[in-house]
């Protein structure tokens, strides 16, 4: 045991910032069946601050067969109490509460219960009408919602979020901002001071490629009327020039720094003003509306406007960055991070300091703008937390994004099924088409229609399986027709799908619930920590063929 921190293995992913956000969260779980308790288990273990379980059932024999958070001695007790107790026992850092009430009744009787201080709502196996109502309340109050479902061999995780500000999106490939196409004066001075011809061999082979490129790019610009390489031929010429600047050493070992320089030459014409579109979109949004953050990417048909809330410190920080960019010819604040490269220690450390100093200066300029904006709104200087929010935005300016999904209301009223069904055309294999997750999405919608009409799930205990399957088949045909994409599903959907839905009889298999609980908790962590990129918007796991897909209907 070389550490006493039980969170060590996850801190390496989401860091202290993420952990703090998680610890400050309060998660509401509606429905304590296996999908719900498995999701909560994966949030209690990593240290979510508080949870509340709402469930109206009493523990039965069937629960013992698919829910890990009940024991034989709990049979007959309220399921909310038993599961909350055993979930809390997983981690002494976590506070747990429960309430014995049917989630459907709470949603109907106290529509704004979900807005009473919860960071996130997880709705497990909610009946269709209640889920729709809950979706609307969460949307109106800008409370993130994850709706989950384990249905036979099918699992669904649906995220609804109206506006989520993500700064640390942690892209897989870091987009280093090295400013080679628009060097700042200190970088240019360092490049000027590099005497490539007069250096000893050992120094030449250890000059950081960034300085080599800065120097050669400047020479190019001087001889090309101030322009960087533009055409393909010019770019090739520049690359050859870089490669040609390498020395042939007596050892015959090629100079790795010049190989790096040649590979990274494109950085000399990559415009640092060009940001990823998500970052640019938020910056534009913040410039246009610094005080009133806009809603998500898509509005909702006939839903209420979000309550007017003051902009977050992060939004003001992004607006401050926008103002900084306007004052600096479109250049964002420098992040200051430098990738590792072949270099001697002293040159590399000096280069790191050069970039860090410039980043500090840019951040200070942004902070001045930020402080002025806050002073205007609140009359107070930035708090330590607010200043930290600004620093984080400056450091990750290329990674920021606003996350918003379609609303559940829109999905239910007008599913974009045609778009999602294009997946069907990616394969000619009939067997694969039949198992495409989007087909099972349609089948589950048919099951919902059946439930809404009859108040029971197809294939429930004692049901006439053949009759229920026929009714589901009718609903399935009606659903794809109403969604205006019967053609796309023609020849793919068969009676077999309806029969399978009836066979499932809304059974909650533990393994499927655990898949759902895993994905849902992962998305919950992303939403609570405001890191990485959450799903948009439905993940459907098909446990028949073990295929899965994101469906954005």
């Amino acid at each position, binding site marked *: *045991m*070389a*550490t006493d*921190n*039980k969170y*060590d*293995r*996850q*801190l*390496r*992913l989401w860091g202290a910032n993420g952990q703090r956000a998680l610890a400050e969260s309060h998660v509401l779980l509606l429905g304590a069946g296996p999908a719900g308790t498995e999701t909560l*288990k*994966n949030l209690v*273990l*990593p240290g979510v601050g508080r949870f509340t379980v709402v469930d109206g059932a009493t523990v039965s*024999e069937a629960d*013992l067969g*698919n829910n*890990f958070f009940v024991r034989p001695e709990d049979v007959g007790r309220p399921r909310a109490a038993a599961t909350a107790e055993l979930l809390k026992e997983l*981690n002494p850092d976590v506070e747990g509460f429960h309430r014995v009430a049917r989630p459907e009744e709470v949603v109907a009787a106290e529509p704004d219960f979900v807005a009473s201080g919860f960071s996130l709502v997880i709705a497990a196996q909610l009946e269709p009408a209640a889920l729709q109502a809950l979706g609307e309340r969460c949307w109106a109050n800008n409370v993130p919602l994850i709706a989950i479902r384990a249905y036979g*061999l099918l699992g669904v995780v649906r995220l609804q979020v109206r506006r989520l500000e993500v700064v640390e*999106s942690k892209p*897989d490939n870091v987009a280093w901002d090295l400013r080679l196409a628009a060097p700042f004066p200190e970088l240019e001075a360092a490049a000027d001071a590099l005497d490539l011809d007069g250096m000893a061999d050992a120094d030449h082979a*250890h000059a950081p490629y960034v300085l080599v490129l800065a120097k050669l790019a400047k020479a190019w610009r001087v001889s090309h009327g101030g322009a960087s390489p533009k055409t393909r031929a010019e770019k090739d010429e520049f690359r050859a020039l870089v490669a040609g600047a390498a020395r042939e050493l007596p050892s015959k070992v090629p100079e790795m720094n010049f190989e790096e320089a040649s590979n990274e030459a494109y950085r000399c014409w990559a415009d640092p003003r060009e940001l990823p579109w998500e970052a640019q979109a938020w910056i534009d949004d913040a410039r246009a509306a610094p005080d009133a953050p806009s809603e998500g990417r898509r509005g909702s048909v006939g839903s209420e406007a979000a309550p007017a809330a003051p902009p977050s410190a992060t939004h003001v920080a992004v607006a401050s960055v926008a103002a900084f960019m306007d004052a600096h010819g479109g250049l964002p604040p420098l992040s200051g991070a430098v990738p*590792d*490269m072949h*270099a*001697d*220690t002293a040159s*590399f450390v000096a280069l790191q300091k050069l970039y860090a100093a410039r980043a500090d200066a840019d951040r200070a300029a942004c902070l001045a703008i930020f402080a002025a904006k806050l002073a205007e709104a609140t009359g107070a200087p930035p708090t330590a937390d607010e200043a930290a929010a600004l620093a984080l935005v400056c450091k990750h300016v290329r990674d920021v994004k606003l996350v918003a999904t379609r609303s559940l209301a829109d999905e239910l009223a007008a599913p974009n099924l045609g778009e999602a069904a294009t997946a069907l055309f990616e394969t000619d294999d009939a*067997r694969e088409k039949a198992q495409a997750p989007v087909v099972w999405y349609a089948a589950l919608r048919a099951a919902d229609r059946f439930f809404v009409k009859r108040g029971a799930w197809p294939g429930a*205990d004692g049901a006439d*399986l053949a009759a229920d399957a026929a009714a589901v088949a009718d609903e399935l045909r009606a659903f794809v027709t109403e969604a205006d994409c019967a053609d796309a599903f023609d020849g793919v959907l068969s009676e077999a799908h309806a029969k*399978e839905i009836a*066979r*499932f*009889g809304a*059974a*909650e*298999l*533990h*393994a499927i*619930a*655990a*898949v759902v609980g*895993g*994905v849902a*908790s*992962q998305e919950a962590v992303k939403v609570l920590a405001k890191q*990485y*990129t959450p799903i*948009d918007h439905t*993940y459907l*796991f098909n*446990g*028949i*063929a073990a*295929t899965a*897909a*994101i469906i954005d209907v």
Partner: protein
Amino acid sequence: MYSNVDKLLTRPTSFGSETGSLAVGEFEASPEVRDFVTSECKVLVVGAGGLGCEILKDLALSGFADIHVIDMDTIDVSNLNRQFLFRAKDVGSPKATTAAAFINARCPKTTVTAHVGKVQEKDGDFYAQFNVVCSGLDNVEARRWLNSMLVSLAEVDDDGNVVDPSQIIPMVDGGTEGFRGQARVIIPRFTSCFECSLDSFPPQKTYPMCTIAETPRLPEHCISYAQLVEWPKAFPDKSVDTDSPEDMTWIFQVAEARARKFDIEGVTYMKTMGVVKNIIPAVASTNAVVSAVCVNEVFKLMTLCSQSLNTYMMYMGNHGVYTHTFEYKKKDDCPITSARVRTLAVAPTMLLGTLIESMCGPDSDLRLKAPSLTTASQSLYMRKPKALEAATRANLGKPLSELVADDDEITVTDAIFPGDVSLTLKLSFECEEAA
């Protein structure tokens, strides 16, 4: 109690195992199928860590009643963020027994039998008693050994056909790393095996020694220097105990001093542990997903109640969720599953010792550990017993042309595989220039 499972097993379907692209049998809906799960089927879980804890729970709550688990590790405090069968009071106890005791207490219809030890310590008879194996291991070596053990249990005749189908023990294997993971189904002799996909498990990343020693730039370089250069100098007779806070603190402090000397920022105790122990981030959610996908496959393979994963599912959860299911093809010269003999082009002047070295290490094709080589007529080099090692040691310095003829087949055994598993390689002589 298993009323949810019963619906799947007692009702007919159009999507039984026989309808899938990896068909393993024909489904017949009946209560007998359920009874097979709850009273006959014997499952081995390999690993009682992040995946193993989940797998045990998922199996128990799918109705499986006779489960064995094997693991050599003891519980560490850093396991507690995901290995939910363990509590702070269990730190230091064996994982296998602690996990088994928890499941046995929580799920009274299930009996988990614990085995504390390495997978390599069990023999063929042990593995042959199971209907299916579900593995959640954190290392490639144990997976390779287990995979070749299970493949070897399915005996084949001279034409490569399985003699007795009841000897086929499916292996469902999971693995995770941070928000990524994979689940796969291996039907010995029928699908690709773990060895077929060895290339997709790259060896651990290391830093070049010259960078560490001469031009350190990153905190990682300073930490590696403290571990690989300073420690052996200070403690020539003792290797680093990565579980000892004293040892790790020593490395941290030495690395910190070196970093200060070179003006390098970022050496922390946490980073020191990460580098020295090659720590891979791990979270509850990914383990839950991958384990549950594996157990769903075990359930379907044992009951035939639905189609099977054919054969590999990749899961990436950082940005949205990307899942990709595809058939991992057999490698046609896989040393474990392929009947085709792999040909190795060698120079006749190559020394036997050089040939052996070329089979070992992270960059070699076969990634062996300590191979022994024989031909049909003689031992070329044997590690054991001692007398034979001494008798064959002189061969290491001899050119191959003195030991074998062109196109001779040699048999290779290695600790990475079970004792009775051997590889056959054909040595084809090439002229110096071509080699």
